């Protein structure tokens, strides 16, 4: 294997490991917001690394490689919108209100946790 193939494999398996870790996180935690946190992470680090590995190796043709990279780019740039929408829906379902809670405003005013 050449150096570029080794680098592509390192990127590929780093991306796979990141995605699998996020899958374990989604199934491990019970809170919907924690699950959303891990599901969102699965659409950032993993696709970037796997797309880099795919670009270095090639997907059969130049157009195929570009389309594979575009699919990963869609995951990277569009899924934050979906994460935000799901988080808003989850907050509406769990707390019946999307506005900040009094304890959130109090901690912000006092600077607690900084």
């Amino acid at each position, binding site marked *: *294997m050449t150096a570029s*193939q080794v680098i*592509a*494999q390192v990127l*590929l*398996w780093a*991306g*796979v490991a990141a*995605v*699998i870790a*996020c*899958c*374990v996180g*989604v*199934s491990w935690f019970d809170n*919907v917001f924690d*699950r*959303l946190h*891990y*599901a969102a992470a*699965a*659409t950032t680090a*993993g*696709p970037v690394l*796997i*797309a880099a*590995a*795919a670009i270095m*190796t*090639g*997907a*059969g*043709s130049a*157009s*195929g*490689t*570009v*389309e*594979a990279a*575009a*699919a*990963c780019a*869609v*995951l990277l740039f*569009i*899924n934050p*919108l*979906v*994460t935000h*929408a*799901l988080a*808003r*829906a*989850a907050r*509406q*379902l769990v707390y019946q209100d999307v506005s900040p809670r009094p304890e959130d405003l109090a901690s912000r005013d006092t600077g607690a946790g900084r």
Partner: protein
Amino acid sequence: MSRSLFLVAALVLLAGCLPAAAVALRARPIDGVVAVQLAGALTTLVLVCLAVGLRQSSFPPVALIVAVCAAVGGLVWARFLDREP
């Protein structure tokens, strides 16, 4: 050799759908939607790995379509669940 490892990676990513399926089957609907979004991302990455491993030019457009449709579906589900009484 390196391309066959992409096929192995696709199998490993496919196995990641099992915990997502377990969450979708057992948890609340909102948790199930989160798991479905994760499965959509996994499917996209599996198709990308298959495209590289098999050197088939037919897989990348499917991966792109799956990524877009999964995102749109997630937004529809979020809107639907947001309106739930």
